[in-house]
């Protein structure tokens, strides 16, 4: 037995760990809490990401890629996609839904026109429609609107028009189509009731209707505008584009080729009348390759052609280069030939009919009067003078085919039956005009040079209404047409024709990483909890070392060198750390769950969804544990560093730190205290004089004051007492209590510092809390002075400030109370991902707003920073939006919070966006708005918007100006008026407050976890106080033996402990108040006394309770043994 019983370090470690379990337990607990909090924070990050991914998958179902189109295409396009993909054509629109029973209206509802193929595609049992007016309502939408099965619904969706609304021939009076439906079933989220193609964690309002119903009501028989794709091995958008390109027909792109009446050639026309530039370019290239002479034509409507005091009403006028390209066969009439036009007056050719009617001869001045639709939403009449250069015969190539087919005009039996989308004065139409119509239909009556027509009637949609090709190939026209068609399609990219493939699953998964790293945030939020836990572990490990200082001395005496000695204790620390880490690992699941529960409930405003669930991975747990282990071992190492600093003799007598070391530390603390005080005073002076930012100056000064106070206290506790305790009664006893605080000064300083720092952070954070109900309506505030924001589901192409515009929409008629007081600022919108803090997903395609020129000059809102380089730009940074950078980037403005926290960019940073033609355009951040209502999108100028997104029609976002004293009934009237048109009115203050709520929730989370840290710190302090008292048991027994009564001793102990508590909490609070003084001053607020009380009271209660427990414990122990131990 003796042989095997040898003493090994491991045995000593084991014995020590067990013997000192009371102090080891808090060490293990501290490490476990730190690991749990750290790992839990990582779990929160993973849980948010995981929940967002789950939500994405739940909402997109099996959809991997979505092909969307600017215009409807044949459903059969989906069938032509190879079988390796699973595909499903649908109609996807946004609409406004009215619940007939409750009259509740919901805007921007996702409307899906589907049939059984959708459910087959999603691999789910079909949810059949009971009839063609049945609607399947998503449960979230149903809950929000209180829709029950069988309820009647009125769905308003945008009518589908090929012709641009913001052009002369666009129909502006027929934008919305109302479809009557009945709720046949309510779909749960797992039944794809929350089906959505754009990731957002908030509520999704989805409505499924029979695709046939929508096709019929939208006049888009057998057509769809979206294809869902899945089953792709690789989600390569390029391969989808290739497939689309191979299977596209001209019809899918809204193009048609038709033979000319003469049979000598063919025409390329578009459903939208105007041929888009990329298509025209490709067509002219294809014609050039095939050797086909081509003539682009831009035929427009002249309200009047005047000459010699005579006038022809409502005539087609063609801008085309006659005599060139495919128009060489146009016959000039008469012997006068042609005359050369003046350089400043463009030439015009009249048909023989028109020249005869006007009695005009070459050389005469001809005035042409026409309408122009301004993008601001007004129709204006303009006029241009021409010099008659010749007269052409109304025959041959001069025929009705040169004029586009205009709905409401072309098919009319007579001119009097015209129903054009512009004002028509029927009284001006003469008999002879009707006769012309009967004979020649829309044959142009005049020709002007193409460049002139394109200049006069310019718009952003196209510069040609047709292209005429002359077939001189020798083959028949149909063959030439087919060859040309193939050549044209090979030159077109699907994107340039508005067909775009979006890898929704892939980009959604990328987006689900989130713009906010919750793991990082929760590590920050839990910072004080982690620090408190680590300090608790440190404190108790130090306590163990202090408790065993004589043992250390003995081990040194028997020849154990500092190195092996440290290793011995380090191994003890390692075991404690490992046990703590393992325990922490289990606790982390609980902490993670609690935090995720918190995000679902207490802090739901931070995430905007209650669909958060706990996700964890071994990687997070390993990482959290590794970090916890490293930190705890570093703590152990730090504690043990002092073992070398004293002689064995001193250690044997129970002194861990020599007087010399104590003095040196005291001196260092004194120097730091003086330096911090001096720097803080300088900063305060500089901030007061405006030499540095007040906010930063005061905050840093407050923090330095805290450092100074703590160092001064450390100096006071470590230095030798200057005077002897003297006198009698309470003053002397208080002196004794204060002197007692010098017992183990390290412990006292550490505990107080912890409480002071936590208090400082909690109180100073309060200053950044925003008052949600105090939203300013000043022009330079975050609302820009606009009381409301309106968002429209349907594009508004009229000027909402004009009587005509309002009359056209049927809103705010002159009798409405709100009519005279409301002004709108209209913004164009490229729909996209919400870039505000309300969206947790990383924006992949941010929402973009086009700000009108008048707004840019109105100097509203305030800016945090900008790239302004001129005094004008500095005065009004909105002017920066006029800028296009030399490298082609377009100036953009966004909210500072969006830039920093969502986009993670800075000024000068670029945001790549896809333009309507498929190209990538960079938006460069030129200015950052200060806490504004624009957090949800990126702003560019309307001019640049129309350049990049020419296909986006109308206005969908509005800032609404109303008088400050507008009454509630007027507001209600306004809401109803706009709601009828599918425009949702929202208070700017409410929107800004919703952003503030998110910020405030983050602050609350930080403060809650900080308070937990504070409580843990207070618990540590209480335990240390208890320990201090117990360590001095014999000293207290001596005082009792010397005649001190219990209440006096209790008073001394309480004074000493409350001194430490007040010192910690008090210095934290005072220094925090210094830090936030400018913020409080600028807001005219009083210090956050409630928060101070909420912080101070628990700390004082916990500390006092611990002291009382200690006092009771001491007084319950018998006097004699305590005295004997002394």
């Amino acid at each position, binding site marked *: 037995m003796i042989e095997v019983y040898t003493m090994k370090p491991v045995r000593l470690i084991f014995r*020590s760990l067990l013997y000192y379990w009371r102090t080891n337990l808090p060490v293990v607990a501290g490490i476990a809490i730190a690991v749990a909090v750290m790992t839990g924070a990582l779990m929160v990050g993973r849980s948010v990401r995981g929940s967002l991914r789950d939500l994405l998958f739940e909402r997109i179902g099996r959809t991997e890629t979505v092909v969307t189109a600017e215009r409807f295409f044949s459903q059969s396009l989906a069938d032509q996609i190879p079988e390796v993909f699973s595909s499903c054509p649908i109609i996807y629109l946004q609409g406004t839904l009215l619940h007939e029973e409750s009259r509740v209206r919901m805007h921007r509802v996702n409307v899906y026109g589907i049939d059984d193929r959708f459910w087959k595609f999603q691999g789910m049992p079909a949810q059949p429609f009971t009839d063609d007016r049945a609607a399947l309502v998503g449960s979230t939408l149903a809950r929000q609107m209180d829709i029950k099965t069988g309820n009647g619904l009125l769905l308003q969706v945008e009518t589908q028009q090929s012709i641009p609304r913001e052009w002369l021939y666009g129909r502006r009076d027929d934008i919305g189509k109302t479809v009557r439906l009945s709720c046949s079933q309510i779909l749960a989220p797992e039944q794809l009731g929350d089906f959505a193609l754009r990731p957002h964690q908030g509520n999704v309002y989805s409505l499924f209707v029979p695709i046939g119903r929508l096709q019929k009501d939208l006049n888009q028989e057998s057509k769809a505008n979206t294809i869902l794709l899945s089953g792709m091995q690789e989600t390569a958008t390029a391969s989808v584009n290739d497939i689309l390109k191979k299977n596209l027909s001209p019809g899918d792109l809204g193009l048609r080729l038709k033979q000319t009446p003469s049979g000598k050639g063919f025409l390329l026309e578009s459903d939208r009348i105007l041929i888009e530039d990329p298509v025209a370019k490709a067509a002219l290239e294809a014609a050039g390759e095939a050797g086909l002479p081509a003539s682009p034509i831009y035929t427009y409507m002249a309200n009047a052609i005047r000459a010699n005091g005579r006038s022809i009403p409502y005539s087609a006028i063609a801008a085309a280069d006659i005599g060139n390209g495919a128009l060489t066969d146009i016959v000039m009439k008469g012997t006068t030939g042609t005359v050369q036009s003046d350089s400043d007056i463009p030439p015009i050719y009249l048909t023989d009919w028109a020249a005869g009617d006007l009695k005009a001869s070459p050389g005469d001045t001809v005035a042409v009067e026409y309408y122009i639709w301004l993008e601001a939403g007004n129709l204006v009449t303009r006029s241009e003078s021409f010099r008659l250069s010749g007269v052409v015969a109304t025959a041959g190539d001069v025929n009705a085919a040169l004029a586009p087919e205009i709905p409401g005009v072309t098919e009319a039996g007579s001119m009097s039956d015209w129903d054009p989308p512009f004002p028509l004065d029927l009284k001006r139409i003469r008999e002879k005009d009707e006769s012309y119509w009967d004979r020649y239909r829309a044959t142009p009556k005049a020709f002007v040079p193409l460049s002139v027509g394109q200049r006069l009637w310019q718009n952003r949609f196209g510069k040609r209404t047709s292209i005429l090709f002359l077939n001189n190939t020798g083959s028949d026209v149909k063959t030439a047409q087919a060859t040309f068609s193939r050549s044209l399609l090979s030159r077109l990219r699907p994107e340039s024709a508005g067909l775009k493939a979006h890898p929704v699953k892939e980009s959604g998964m990328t987006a689900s990483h989130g713009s906010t790293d919750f793991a990082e945030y929760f590590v920050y939020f839990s910072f004080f909890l982690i620090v408190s836990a680590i300090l608790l572990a440190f404190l108790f490990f130090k306590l163990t070392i202090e408790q065993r200082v004589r043992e250390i001395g003995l*081990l040194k005496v028997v020849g154990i060198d*500092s190195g092996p000695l440290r290793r011995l204790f380090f191994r003890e620390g390692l075991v404690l750390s490992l046990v703590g880490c393992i325990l922490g690992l289990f606790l982390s699941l609980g902490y993670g769950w609690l935090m995720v529960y918190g995000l679902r409930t207490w802090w739901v405003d931070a995430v905007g969804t209650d669909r958060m669930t706990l996700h964890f991975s071994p990687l997070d747990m390993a990482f959290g544990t590794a970090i916890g282990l490293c930190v705890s071992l570093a703590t152990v190492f730090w504690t043990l560093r002092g073992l070398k600093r004293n002689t064995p003799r001193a250690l044997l007598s129970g002194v861990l730190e020599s007087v010399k070391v104590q003095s040196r530390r005291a001196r260092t603390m004194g120097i730091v205290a003086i330096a911090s005080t001096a720097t803080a005073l300088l900063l305060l002076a500089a901030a007061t004089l405006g030499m540095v930012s007040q906010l930063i100056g005061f905050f840093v000064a407050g923090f330095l004051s805290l450092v100074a106070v703590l160092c001064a206290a450390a100096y006071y506790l470590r230095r030798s007492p200057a005077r002897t305790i003297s006198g009698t009664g309470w003053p002397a006893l208080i002196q004794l209590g204060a002197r007692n605080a010098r017992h183990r000064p390290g412990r006292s300083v550490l505990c107080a510092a912890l409480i002071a720092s936590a208090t400082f952070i909690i109180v100073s954070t309060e200053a950044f809390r925003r008052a949600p109900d105090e939203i300013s309506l000043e022009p330079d505030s975050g609302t820009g002075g606009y009381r409301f924001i309106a968002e429209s589901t349907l594009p508004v192409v009229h000027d909402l400030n004009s009587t005509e515009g309002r009359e056209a929409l049927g809103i705010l008629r002159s009798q409405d109370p709100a009519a005279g007081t409301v002004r709108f600022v209209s913004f164009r919108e490229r729909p996209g991902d919400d870039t505000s803090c309300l969206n947790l997903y990383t924006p992949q395609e941010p929402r973009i707003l086009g700000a009108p020129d008048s707004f840019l000059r109105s100097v509203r809102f305030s800016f945090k920073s900008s790239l302004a380089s001129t005094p004008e730009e500095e005065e009004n940074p909105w002017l920066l939006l006029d800028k296009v950078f030399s490298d082609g980037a377009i100036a953009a403005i966004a909210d500072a919070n969006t830039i920093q926290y969502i986009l993670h960019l800075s000024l000068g940073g670029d945001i790549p966006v896809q333009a309507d033609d498929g190209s990538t355009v960079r938006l460069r951040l030129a200015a950052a708005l200060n806490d504004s209502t624009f957090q949800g999108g990126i702003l560019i100028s309307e001019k640049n918007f129309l350049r990049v997104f020419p296909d986006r029609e109308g206005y969908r976002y509005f800032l609404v100006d109303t008088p400050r004293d507008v009454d509630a009934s007027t507001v209600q009237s306004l809401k109803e008026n706009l709601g009828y048109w599918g425009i949702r009115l929202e208070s700017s203050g409410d929107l800004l407050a919703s952003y503030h709520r998110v910020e405030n929730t983050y602050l609350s989370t930080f403060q809650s976890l900080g308070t937990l840290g504070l409580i843990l710190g207070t618990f540590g302090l209480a335990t240390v106080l208890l320990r201090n008292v117990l360590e001095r048991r014999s000293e207290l027994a001596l005082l009792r033996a010397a005649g001190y009564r219990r209440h006096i001793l209790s008073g001394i102990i309480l004074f000493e402990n409350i001194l430490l508590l007040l010192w910690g909490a008090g210095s934290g609070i005072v220094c925090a108040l210094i830090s936030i003084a400018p913020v409080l001053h600028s807001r005219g607020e009083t210090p956050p006394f409630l928060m101070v009380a909420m912080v101070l009271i628990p700390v004082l209660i916990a500390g006092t309770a611990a002291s009382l427990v200690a006092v009771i414990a001491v007084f319950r122990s018998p006097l004699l043994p305590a005295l004997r131990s002394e």
Partner: protein
Amino acid sequence: MLEVKNLTKEYPMPGRRLEVLSNIDFTLNDAESASIIGPSGSGKSTFLYIVGALEPPSSGLVRLAGENPYQMNEKDLAAFRNRKIGFVFQDHHLLPQCSVLENVLIPTLVSPPDDSVPKRAMELLEQVGLKDRIHHKPHELSGGEKQRVALARALVLQPRLVLCDEPTGNLDTESAETVVSLLFDLHKRQKNMLVVVTHNLEIAGRFHRRFKLHRAQLQPA
């Protein structure tokens, strides 16, 4: 042999230096024992700690078996103390978490492996009368018993020099007598050098050589 030459120890004090030991010469041959007496604060313990390689002198020479510990690095110095010197203090300084046997074996934690040590530890415990208490914890022992364990601990590695600082200072007369008897007995058995600092004149008188520390000087008593 233990040689001490011109040993001086001073402590810095505000405005002056306090000389505790002044030019002390001292020699002790193998198997010899010596006692040192003197009033409190006279520097007895300081002398012992300096001789025991625990506290460096301000000047002078200490040499044990021809080796000067203060010329060694920390590692060698620790090994020197471990193998050549045994300490017994007024307070027993037993590790409360370890048993009697484990306390005796504490010095072996850093000594070279030696199979005879555990046996010797048991023999020593038998000699100090604690053979049946080897698994007891210090708190289960009386003051005298604790000091006997400390004695066994000091001798377990058969040091050349055993230094005792008031070994009976905390003991009653009977326990003190037992400890002193054991001290002499074991000294005779191990033939080591023994230096004991004590206030007890009766105990001091039982040593072969007796010294008195007075005014920083070591004088024969």
